[in-house]
């Protein structure tokens, strides 16, 4: 480091330009404004959006599952006439919806963005905000007939991790 001592000395002789006189008064004014928006980020709204999107995704998945069950439980109405060539499976209480068993859950995170440090309204320390977008795919399978049911929906998640400095 001694090689650079002269250079460091020259650098220290460079004096940064002094801030304008108005800067301190602007900060004083900002600190005095109790209702100022400084330091209050729209975090809560985005947090609500996260839960809203998650809720909507789950509601959509539930609706699709219910719709599929209803379809499977109404085979008689859709039984074709005698002219049908393909044998129509006969659904009973034993082998229809009750036989659909969960076969898998896939979660693919296809985009993650680090949005840097932010302050939440109720926190005294900064939080690192990471937004990730995921596609969840749920699968059910009927082991007897081999029929499968698959539901896929996007999900956005925002995670806030406390950051501690030294």
């Amino acid at each position, binding site marked *: 480091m001694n090689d*650079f001592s*002269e250079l460091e000395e020259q650098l220290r002789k460079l004096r940064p*330009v*002094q801030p304008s006189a108005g*800067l301190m008064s602007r900060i004083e004014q900002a*600190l005095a404004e109790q209702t100022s928006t400084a330091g209050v980020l729209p975090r809560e709204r985005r947090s609500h959006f996260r839960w809203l999107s998650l809720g909507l995704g789950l509601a959509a998945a539930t609706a699709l599952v219910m719709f599929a069950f209803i379809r499977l439980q109404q085979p008689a109405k859709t039984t074709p006439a005698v002219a049908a060539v393909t044998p129509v499976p006969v659904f009973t209480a034993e082998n229809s919806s009750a036989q659909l068993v969960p076969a898998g859950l896939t979660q693919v995170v296809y985009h993650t963005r680090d949005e840097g440090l932010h302050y939440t309204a109720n926190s005294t320390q900064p939080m690192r905000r990471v937004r990730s977008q995921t596609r969840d795919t749920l699968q059910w399978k009927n082991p007897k007939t081999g029929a499968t049911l698959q539901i896929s929906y996007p999900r956005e998640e925002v995670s806030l991790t406390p950051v501690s*400095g030294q």
Partner: protein
Amino acid sequence: MENVATDENWKTCFAQLAPGLVLFARQWARSAADAEDIVQEAFVRFWRKQHDISNRGLLYATVRSIALDFLRRDSRRARRESVAMSDVDQTIAPAFAIEDESQRVLAAALDRLPAEQREVLVMKIWNELTFAEIASALEISQNTAASRYRYALAALKKNLPSL
């Protein structure tokens, strides 16, 4: 919560830190006024949260975070205005009070440093942060901070053989 605006301590703290903070913010701002806006927002936010002023790593991390947000917004605005303002002289005010030709050359060499080296140099030389504090602010290891500092000095020395 105590009304910190009545507390004179912040003026003492800020008076000591302001030149270095503004210089630090200038790395991402196109003008001194923009840099002051960044510092104002960061300091107010930091002080309101009643962080310990000795936690300088966190203060500089706050400035950096706001500066990067500002840069993103500013870039979008600049693109919008670039056509309309293309014939306006975009003079950038100097960040240092230049006293002679050697200082002008040195300041110009600083501007040519890679951003990651320059920010460490600015924090170390003009803000007197320790490598631990720099590492905390930039979320890098102390060894990386020290390496970037040495690389910056080496690059300056290479470009300025007279030093």
